[in-house]
């Protein structure tokens, strides 16, 4: 039997031929298969011969247990069949019958040697930030008044510093959360999603109305950058999800990816409720995004608009009764 040692993303670390039983698996140096994984016990698993199977495995009293992969069902003991997969700590063991055939050799055309592309999440993040900043500078300078260079430079510096600080804050917050996720990809995925939401929440500081925060024209200058970035990043997400869904359930990945957006919406909604209770003589800022201004061709009639105005009377009576 062949035992493949892989990480949680499915990358192969080593293949070991098992010919003699029993086979011990663990972190300790006395094991037959030594795993460099802090979540694996010094003695974690023992593989024994079993008739009719490739073998049988038993959890020898580990702290973190043995789980089927990707189903995550705890297994105190299990039968080993060809392509059985289990997870111990952050390591996935794949058991393969040595008699299984491998695929045919692919003929490589001359001059087409390609180095394997390794995933660099941090570089991906940096690249996306540079892309975002460049797009932002471009859209900012074309949409805002070019009255004096000092003013624009100052505004850009302030904007970059504020955005950078917010990005670091979100990163710090989610680095704690993603430790629970135990998946490196999701740390950067959450960070990139946080950036998208920061662009949406940037005008929140000016808007007092829930509807108007998504229509505030301050988004305009970042609109092109934001949309382009989100489209690019969505493609990247699907690429990774497609790869990862081979080793982990797609539904599990989507559930985990939804955590940040749900939490962001909950935070914004609570901010909205707080603002409703605060007394103010100031009016909400009237604003709309430039696409709305450019695309709106059919406004509502005067009668229909003042029908909406009439509905304010009931809301005001509610306020009076409080």
């Amino acid at each position, binding site marked *: 039997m062949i035992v493949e040692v892989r990480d949680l993303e499915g990358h192969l670390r080593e293949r070991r031929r098992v010919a003699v039983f029993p086979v011990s698996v663990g972190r300790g140096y006395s094991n037959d298969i030594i795993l460099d994984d802090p979540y694996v016990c010094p003695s974690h698993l023992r593989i024994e011969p079993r008739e009719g199977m490739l073998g049988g495995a038993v959890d020898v009293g580990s702290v973190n247990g043995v789980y089927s992969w990707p189903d995550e069902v705890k297994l105190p003991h299990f039968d080993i069949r060809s392509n059985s997969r289990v997870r111990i700590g952050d390591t996935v063991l794949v058991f393969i019958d040595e008699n299984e055939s491998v695929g045919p050799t692919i003929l490589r055309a001359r001059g087409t040697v390609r180095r394997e592309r390794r995933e660099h999440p941090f570089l991906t993040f940096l690249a996306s930030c540079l892309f975002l900043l460049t797009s932002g500078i471009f859209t900012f300078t074309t949409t805002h008044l070019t009255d004096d260079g000092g003013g624009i430079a100052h505004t850009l510096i302030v904007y970059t510093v504020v955005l950078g600080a917010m990005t670091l804050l979100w990163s710090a917050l989610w680095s704690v959360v993603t430790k629970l996720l135990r998946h490196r990809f999701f740390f950067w995925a959450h960070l990139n999603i946080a950036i998208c939401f920061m662009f949406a929440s940037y005008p929140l500081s000016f808007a007092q109305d829930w509807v108007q925060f998504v229509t505030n024209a301050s988004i*305009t200058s970042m609109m092109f950058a934001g949309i382009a970035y989100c489209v690019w990043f969505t493609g990247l997400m699907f690429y990774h999800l497609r790869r990862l869904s081979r080793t982990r359930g797609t539904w599990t990945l989507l559930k985990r990816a939804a955590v940040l957006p749900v939490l962001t919406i909950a935070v914004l909604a609570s901010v909205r409720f707080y603002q409703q209770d605060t007394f103010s*003589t100031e009016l*909400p800022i009237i604003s709309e995004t430039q696409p709305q201004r450019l695309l709106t061709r059919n406004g509502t009639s005067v009668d229909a608009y003042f029908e909406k105005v009439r509905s304010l009377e009931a809301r005001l009576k509610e306020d009076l009764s409080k």
Partner: protein
Amino acid sequence: MFRRIFLLLLVLCPPFAAADEPASPLSQSMFEKYSPGILQVRVLERRSSTKSSIGSGFLVSEDGRVVTNYHVISKVVFDIDKYRLDVVDREGNSYAASVRGLDVVHDVAVIQVLGFKGTVLPSQCKELAQGEHLFSFGNPHDLGTTVVEGIYNGNVEYSLFDRLHFTGSINPGMSGGPVFTSDGRLAGVNVATSGEQISFLVPCKYASALIEPPGGQSPGDLVQMTTAQLTEYQDSALKPLFQAPLRTSSLGEYSVPSHFFPSLKCWSKSEDITQGKYSYLNHQCTGEHEIYVDEDVSAGSIYAYYTLVNSSQLNEFQFADLVEGMLQRFTSGGDGSSDFVTNYRCTSDFVRRDKLMLRVQTCIRAHKRLAGLYDTVVVFDSFDSSQSSLLGYFAAMGVSFKNAEQLGRAIIGGVSRRGV
């Protein structure tokens, strides 16, 4: 707002020394004859018995009825549990008092003083002639009763309500004091000053109408009475506006409602900005007078402000950004405290009027103590052109909800663009 500051100065601030000229013999005789009936009216905070506001009043009946201004005693109307009313005579004796009747629109009130016996002053009115000599009495803080001689210079034009123009230095603290003609008839009641010997009086007829109110009034009735008077006033004052389209003025290629209310005075200002990249033209209409209801509350004020922005050098994104920045200045909802008004509730949408496209936001808030009255603000901007835009801000305070809606309709209906 400007007017309210001077009303408060009359009521609260320490007095100034009086006349620029020595008193005439007639002034002396008037003073001797009428000063015994002049009282200082005080609103005292109940727990500390310290003065919250002061003014003047004059005795008009043997049973102790005293005429003063409404704004002197307004705190007692709305917060009777926190404030009480008393009067002080020339000898420094104080007497408890209560509100007997009021006319919030014309800013006059009658109070009932308990246990005071003094000289009853005339309350018969007289038709005045321009240039007639008048004598204003009052009791400024700590200076005792004073007399100021001046001239009647007609009725104030373009005012929300009747006011007499008195050329004389009414001093702070003299609010509520009487103004007599040389033959001893009541001309009016001191109410406000704008300095430089420009002062205003409530015409006598409004004080006379209050002197015989039907029965006594309890504090609860006073709030309802105030609300009813304001409601009736705004209904009658605004009714003519809805019977025909509003009067308009040209603002570049646009026409905007302007000069549509008697008290509205309008000015314009034009300026080129940023080395000629864009220019703007402002047109502002402000109501000269408003009705004082209480410290943070007024009614009857109307305000309209328009800005026409033009640019031929900015691209449409830059121009839209410029307009968005200018709209952010239109966020003032006026004065108010949470004791008197609710938060504004708003609705906004894109509204098409024929071929003119406007983005309109209407915000309305309710008065908590004046049941059925609201403050409304309408903000709009046009965006049917990428090189010019009309921004508008309209506010009306202390109107019924129905009138607030109709005013909004009238303003939006009055905006038009030539060629569209």
